[in-house]
């Protein structure tokens, strides 16, 4: 059963990759890469069970965290051109 | 405490590096770096003596046995390399003070000392460790700090040079780590001695692949022709003291790695008979000697000229290694030391020129024979050593190299080595002629370089002459190291 | 900036620690206490710097809400999956403004995220009480589910 889930996740990742290649806008690619990342988290979790070594879950969590922060950072960079400013409307003094 | 020397040698500079980075005051960082480098040199000398007296030193970190525990294993070969690296470090640190103060922003200076110390740590670690993965880690510690150090050069092209070096160096590192992984997959160990024991028992096809990955990776780190392009810009644009340090140590340690992998781990039997690496490396080394020497003649920047010369000299070292005889390996190992002295002295002299003139282009050398007599005299003597004039260390290297070629009946190789020396005459003499046969035409007054720059320079020059006249120690150690590597002799 | 906020924060963090830890030796527990304290200190520094402290929304109605939300999410997923699998791809995307009545930022965020979590609608922007919602079909924003969601979030805040 894990193998079905594994295949499904890999298929989803492949679709995400296709979207990343198709684009057309950079935001579509970010969406695709982000999705690829969250599916990787799933893959790590499922693979842990598939191979009988679920101790990679820490890694999955770490990966999810980095994927999240990476997505935010990339978006912020595209929107503002830097990573250092505040993202709310007030702007930085 | 003395049994812990192998690890202290690495840990002390490792601890000094972050401390130096924390210091706000450049002079304080300098004092720390210099003191550390001297302590390291003292320890390296003690280790060399102990290895000479008692044989191989083995030290297991944390008391775990291989393959989990990391072993520091020091025989004559590493002791020799450790001594070279430590000695250059001990001379570069005092030299760096004035040089950095002229070339680097004050706020960055402590970081540069940290970088130098970290690089020193990495190089010493490579030489000290008996664990291949640990070697990789130290390799990258030294490489990454080298990238950062080079990028600190005053010209913006230093950044690009550092970038190119980083790309090539990282490709090399990745190849090396793949090769290491393959060896681990086959044997289940990372310990060099264990690897040497178990590799002959496993499939030689996979071993060959690992061997190939390692050879390419190390050749990149080594700047062996035709993988040498990164070295040119890196040496040209790095801060003077950094160039001195890297030119005298980094590639030497890479040669050590090559020798260690080829002879100690894969064993001469496999490396020479199965892989016949020397038939690949020998032509490359010869092309390096001739083409790089030839190109050096046409350089308009003396640091770049010396960088090309370094590529040629690396060719000499690899040539000696690929002759694969005791004499040849002796020549290669001896040239490790000798070239460190030579290039150290030459780049230090150029650092003095940079300090006073602000340029090391060929035009900037004009008339310096008179304006900076001590600096240029050091350059001339270093240059003579580079050429291989008798009475200098360069001659001793050439002697063994030609002797090895003659012994092997390779007359063409012997002749090409000597032709390379003659090309060295041509490029060294270009600088000499500019310094002594042309008038200084600059606007501002050029004075003698400060003593803190000249003293280390002249120590190296003196070493060039001393070990050129009395090479009993150096060639003795090198011969013994060669015998260790080939598994012959006592 | 009230101390109770940090005590509450520290306690909930320590609870989190206990669930995760599984080791209840004195040493590890000490580390837990120290860790929670350190995190509280960092949180305090953040509050001081950004002046954006809000009351922790720890309420007993939260599990109930999450259960309800899960059910909504499931229903919405089935809908969207049906659309995706329909060869005609019957979508009618629409962008509509929504008014959110919550007073606290915490609950506004909860509401906004809840909207996004249920497939078919996503919050693309917030400006005070006005949310900009993008819907996959106009059926998704006919108001019924969203109104119920708003009521329930308000109930979490004790506003209704």
């Amino acid at each position, binding site marked *: *059963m894990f193998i079905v*889930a594994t*295949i*499904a*996740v890999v*298929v*989803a990742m492949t*679709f*995400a990759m*296709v*979207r990343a290649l198709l684009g057309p*806008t950079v*935001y579509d690619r*970010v*969406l*695709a890469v*982000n*999705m690829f990342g*969250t*599916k990787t*988290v*799933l893959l790590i979790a*499922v693979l842990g*069970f598939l191979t009988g070594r679920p101790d990679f*879950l*820490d890694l999955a*969590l770490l990966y*999810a*965290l980095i994927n999240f922060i990476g*997505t*935010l950072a990339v*978006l*912020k960079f*595209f929107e503002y051109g830097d990573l250092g400013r505040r993202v709310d409307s007030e702007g930085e003094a | 405490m003395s049994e812990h020397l192998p690890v202290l040698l690495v840990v002390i500079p490792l601890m000094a590096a972050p401390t130096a980075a924390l210091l706000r005051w450049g002079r304080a960082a300098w004092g720390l770096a210099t003191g550390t480098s001297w302590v390291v040199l003292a320890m390296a000398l003690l280790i060399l003596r102990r290895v000479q007296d008692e044989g191989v030193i083995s030290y297991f970190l944390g008391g775990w046995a291989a393959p989990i525990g990391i072993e520091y294993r020091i025989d004559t070969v590493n002791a020799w390399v450790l001594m070279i690296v430590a000695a250059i470090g001990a001379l570069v640190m005092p030299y760096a003070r004035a040089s950095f103060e002229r070339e680097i922003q004050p706020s960055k200076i402590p970081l540069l000392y940290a970088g130098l110390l970290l690089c020193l740590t990495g190089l010493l670690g490579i030489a000290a460790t008996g664990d291949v993965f640990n070697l990789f880690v130290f390799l990258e510690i030294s490489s990454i700090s080298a990238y950062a150090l080079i990028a600190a050069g005053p010209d913006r092209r230093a950044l690009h040079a550092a970038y190119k070096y980083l790309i090539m160096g990282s490709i090399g590192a990745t190849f090396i780590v793949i090769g290491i992984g393959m060896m681990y997959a086959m044997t289940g160990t990372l310990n060099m001695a264990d690897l040497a024991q178990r590799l002959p028992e496993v499939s030689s096809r996979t071993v060959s692949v690992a061997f190939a990955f390692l050879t390419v990776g190390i050749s990149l780190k080594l700047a062996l022709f035709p993988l040498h392009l990164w070295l040119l810009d890196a040496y040209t644009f790095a801060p003077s003291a950094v160039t001195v340090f890297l030119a005298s140590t980094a590639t030497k340690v890479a040669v050590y790695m090559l020798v260690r992998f080829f002879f100690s781990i894969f064993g001469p039997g496999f490396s020479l008979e199965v892989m016949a690496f020397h038939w690949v490396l020998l032509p490359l080394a010869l092309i390096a000697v001739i083409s790089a020497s030839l190109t050096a003649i046409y350089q308009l920047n003396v640091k770049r000229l010396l960088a090309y010369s370094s590529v040629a000299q690396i060719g000499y070292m690899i040539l000696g290694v690929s002759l694969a005889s005791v004499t040849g390996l002796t020549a290669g190992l001896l040239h490790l030391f000798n070239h460190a002295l030579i290039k150290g002295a030459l780049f230090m002299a150029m650092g003095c020129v940079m300090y006073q003139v602000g340029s090391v282009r060929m035009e900037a050398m004009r008339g310096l024979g008179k304006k900076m007599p001590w600096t240029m005299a050091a350059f001339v003597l270093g240059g003579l050593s580079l050429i291989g004039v008798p009475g200098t260390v360069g001659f001793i290297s050439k002697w063994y190299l030609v002797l090895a070629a003659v012994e092997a009946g390779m007359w063409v190789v012997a002749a090409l080595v000597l032709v390379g020396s003659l090309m060295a005459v041509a490029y060294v003499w270009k600088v000499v002629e500019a310094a002594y046969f042309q008038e200084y035409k600059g606007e501002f007054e050029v004075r003698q370089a400060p003593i803190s720059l000249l003293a280390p320079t002249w120590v190296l020059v003196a070493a060039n002459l001393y070990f050129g006249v009395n090479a009993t120690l150096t060639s003795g150690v090198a011969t013994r190291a060669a015998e260790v590597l080939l598994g012959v002799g006592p | 900036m009230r101390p109770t906020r940090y005590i509450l924060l520290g306690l909930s963090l320590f609870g989190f620690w206990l669930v*995760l830890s599984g080791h209840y030796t004195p040493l590890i527990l000490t580390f837990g206490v120290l860790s929670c304290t350190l995190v509280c200190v960092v949180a305090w520094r953040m509050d001081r710097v950004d002046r954006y402290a809000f009351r922790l929304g720890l309420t007993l109605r939260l599990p109930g809400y999450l259960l309800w939300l*899960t059910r909504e999410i499931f229903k919405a997923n089935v809908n*969207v*999956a049906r*659309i*995706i*699998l329909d060869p005609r*791809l019957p*979508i*009618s*995307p*629409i*962008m*509509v*403004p929504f008014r959110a009545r919550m007073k606290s930022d915490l609950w506004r965020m909860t509401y906004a*995220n*809840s909207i*996004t*979590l249920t*497939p078919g*609608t*996503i919050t*693309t*922007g917030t400006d005070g009480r006005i949310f900009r919602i993008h819907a996959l079909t*106009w059926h998704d*924003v006919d108001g019924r589910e969203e109104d119920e969601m708003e009521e329930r979030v308000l109930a979490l805040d004790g506003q209704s």
Partner: protein
Amino acid sequence: MGLFLDIVSWVLLLSGSFFAVVGALGVIRMPDLFTRLHAAGVTDTMGAGLILVGLMFQGGMSLVTVKLFMVLGFLWFSSPVSTYALSRATLASGQEPFWSEDMEIPDTARIPGMVYPVDATAEGD
């Protein structure tokens, strides 16, 4: 009991897999970024949710389950935030949502007092 749990777990894993693939398919089929975000939401909420819960049934009462729960919690927490950030950034870049030309909004669906983009477009023509 073990068999029952296994069956539940398999059902969850299978249906999670179904949603994951369907959502991903949606990401390819949908016409623009905003609509794709909806599809991506399917994989993130149902796909990930069902699969991870399915795994929890395999894990039983253990640290593994706690961690799986944390993964799920984090995904459900971060997914809308990422979605929001993405759509906001896309809007800020000036990209307009896809709008099918023949679409009508029934009056029942309209909220009084709101100005709908479709009307603005229509007026502009």
